């Protein structure tokens, strides 16, 4: 069998928290990389997630994967490909169709010391299990006064894909991001995917890991350091993907790519945009965002989710609280349309931010000199 060794009976945690925090500090800083091959490897986000899962399962026998179609089918989006053959059905568990069931079961096993990685086929289906994510997982450490911790990861695609309609397209970043006790991560590139998933699995707190279906197939260059099995990204640190001095654009997940493309277009118009990849919605890296806004004095937030009570609203409030005096223009939020996602391709395109929307918002923020006229 696996020869699982527990340190003590009744709820030991496998990799205990004291071993983890030292790993969390690792960050790929270009100047630190030495003696590695100069050819940068490319890796799809899918492979990045798969390799991260594989390495963490190899390193800790308490880590196991559970969800619909994760085993025999190799994963609905093939993220768990090959894991069943390698680790067996005990650690790659195919479930009946019951999100509430397997989320609750995962949490229960985490109470007793296992480290589950629960896959929701999309986070839209997590709504059927949301009581367990929030009341059974997020709040347990607090409600038990530290007697129970829940080292669980809930992962899966979040937000819109392409032509999947209203019940498969909602973004849950704002919902989960508002809950104390949860950590919410939103990777963009393959390095993000690898580093953040590894950090999430090693973290003693419950983590909601929001991926993006359309990013799974995208390839990104990965450094040799990121390919190492001990690689880990810190939770709660945003990444400045592109430095700039005129305007700050914050984004996460797929929108980071859009924001980068918008920045290239803006460059031609003489607007030098700084693009921040949030990487983490909770905790939100207010320090990095505010430092950037204090430098550029203008802010555009981008997200695919609904505008009301969204991520952009929180970022705007944070900047107003911390850096009000530095703003030269009101903050603009670029978000999805306030409608359930339509299915028809032309309508769907209108329902989500496109690169042009980000460009226009950035220009408005740069040139707005006349405030909106008050009525009478």
């Amino acid at each position, binding site marked *: 069998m696996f020869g699982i060794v527990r340190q003590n009976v009744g709820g030991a945690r496998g990799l205990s928290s004291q071993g983890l925090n030292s790993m969390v500090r690792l960050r790929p800083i270009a100047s630190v990389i030495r003696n590695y091959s100069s050819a940068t490897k490319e890796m799809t986000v899918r492979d990045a997630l798969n390799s991260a899962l594989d390495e963490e399962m190899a390193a800790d026998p308490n880590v196991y994967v559970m969800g619909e179609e994760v085993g025999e089918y190799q994963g609905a989006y093939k993220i768990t490909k090959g894991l069943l053959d390698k680790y067996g059905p005990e650690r790659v568990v195919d479930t009946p169709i019951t999100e509430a069931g397997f989320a609750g079961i995962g949490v229960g*096993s985490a109470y007793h010391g296992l480290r589950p990685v629960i896959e929701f086929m999309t986070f839209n289906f997590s709504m059927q299990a949301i009581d367990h994510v929030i009341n059974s997982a997020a709040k347990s450490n607090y409600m038990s006064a530290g007697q129970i911790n829940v080292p669980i990861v809930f992962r899966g695609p979040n937000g819109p894909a392409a032509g999947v309609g209203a019940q498969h397209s909602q973004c849950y970043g704002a919902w989960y991001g508002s809950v104390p006790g949860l950590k919410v991560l939103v990777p963009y590139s393959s390095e993000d995917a690898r580093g953040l998933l590894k950090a999430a699995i090693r973290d003693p707190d419950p983590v909601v890991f929001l991926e993006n279906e359309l990013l799974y197939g995208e390839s990104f260059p990965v450094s040799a350091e990121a390919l190492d099995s001990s690689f880990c990204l810190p939770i709660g640190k945003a990444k400045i993907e592109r430095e700039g001095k005129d305007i700050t654009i914050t984004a996460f997940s797929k929108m980071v790519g859009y924001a980068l493309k918008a920045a290239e277009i803006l460059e031609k118009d003489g607007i030098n945009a700084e693009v921040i990849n949030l990487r983490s919605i909770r905790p939100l890296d207010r320090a990095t965002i505010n430092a950037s806004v204090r430098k550029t004095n203008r802010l555009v937030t981008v997200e695919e989710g609904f505008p009301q009570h969204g991520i952009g609203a929180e970022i705007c409030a944070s900047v107003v609280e911390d850096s009000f005096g530095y703003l030269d223009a009101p903050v603009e939020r670029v978000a999805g349309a306030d409608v359930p996602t339509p299915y028809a391709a032309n309508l769907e395109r209108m329902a989500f931010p496109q690169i042009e929307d980000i460009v226009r918002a950035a220009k408005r923020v740069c040139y707005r000199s006349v405030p909106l006229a008050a009525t009478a």
Partner: protein
Amino acid sequence: MSMASIKFIKRTSFLTSSQFSSHLHRWIDSSSRNKPPVTSSGRFGTVYGGRQLHTAASISSDQLSTEAPSRQELNFPGGSVKFTSKRIFISGSNEERAHCYRVLNENGELVIDNDLLKITKELAVKMYTNMATLQVIDTIFYEAQRQGRISFYLTTTGEEAINIASAAALSNNDFVFPQYREPGVLLWRGFTLQEFANQLFGNKHDYGKGRQMHVHYGSKKHNYVTVSSPIATQIPQAVGAAYSMKMEKQDSCTITYFGDGSSSEGDFHAGLNFSAVMEVPVIFFCRNNGWAISTPISDQLRGDGIVVRGKAYGIPSIRVDGNDALAVYSAVYEARKMAIENQTPVLIEALTYRVGHHSTSDDSTKYRPVDEIEWWRNDQSPVKRFRKWIENKGWWSNDNESQHRSNIRKELAQAVQNAERTQKPPVADMFNNVYDVSPKNLNEQKESLRKTLKQHAKEYPSNVPW
């Protein structure tokens, strides 16, 4: 022949026999492409014990014959099923309900005369004293709520046997996932009267650090998971913890308690169904006390209670008289053995009556007759019944009784006084345990609060420590 049967015959001759068998062969081949093959026990060998999966791919030679089949049974996905030409619907209601296991009648007499249950005097007296203690605890804390000293309480009246006898049949390593009407299990495991009182008063000695509402006890050292308010969520959690025990091959199981009302929740279905598929050592203990706040059982479900659902999920189940401590003990004892030795879930439905109100926020006389309540309180009292039994055996007397109850009352009154006087948890504690390591924003807020309290000390109560 009817039109329907003619169509049926036409369809079966559609595939020629050679096409049919080659179709089958392709089917077998594709399913064995994924290693290890599904049909062999190797797929689930290490984890799933003896259960063989029956799929369409494990086809008997019978079915491979080239004759047009007029078979008596067919290997459908899920297993072989016999055909019948009688169109009979399985009835939704039973003329006779599932029988209820009971060994002690209301007079405290054993209805069977064997030593199936080897209960020593020591164990029996311990069980009785705990049941009596539980009654005293309920009385005193209920009164404390009525006096305004605590804001909420719920009693276990009528279910003392369920609480104590089931706990007595378990080992201390078995993980308990309670609902909220099982403080007796914690009492059995050694939770003291003072510890109960501390939780209710939310003072600094409370293991929950004042975070939880009343009666939401939890104690890691007693393997009793903190009570959680949403109904039935503990059911799949118990299955998950049992899965963890199974992976470690521990000589323990999990037990989860829930009421008749909980059996309506989706989590009940998911938990039971899943536990059977995963083959884990979990005991599902349903306290069918007839009421979910004001909802009587007849408005909750229409089947024969909860025990019959076990079979639907493939789980061995038993119905037991919840007011009979010996029957409950015996059932849980055996269930635990089955769960661990066979790595299987077990369902126990204990029939009883919720004698008390749902909680201190409820007045049940508004929706049920008082004489019904009184009948169950007196005639079927599990405590009285067990007392008669141990007294008949010469293990207990009136003197023991009055002595014990008065001791507990004194001790408990003292515990309540102590708990009331003890300081509340420090305010600084409010920010801990949200995460494993406190994040920066909470540290900032904690510091900001500390400064505010210090600066405006006059405006805040002086007896609340930092």
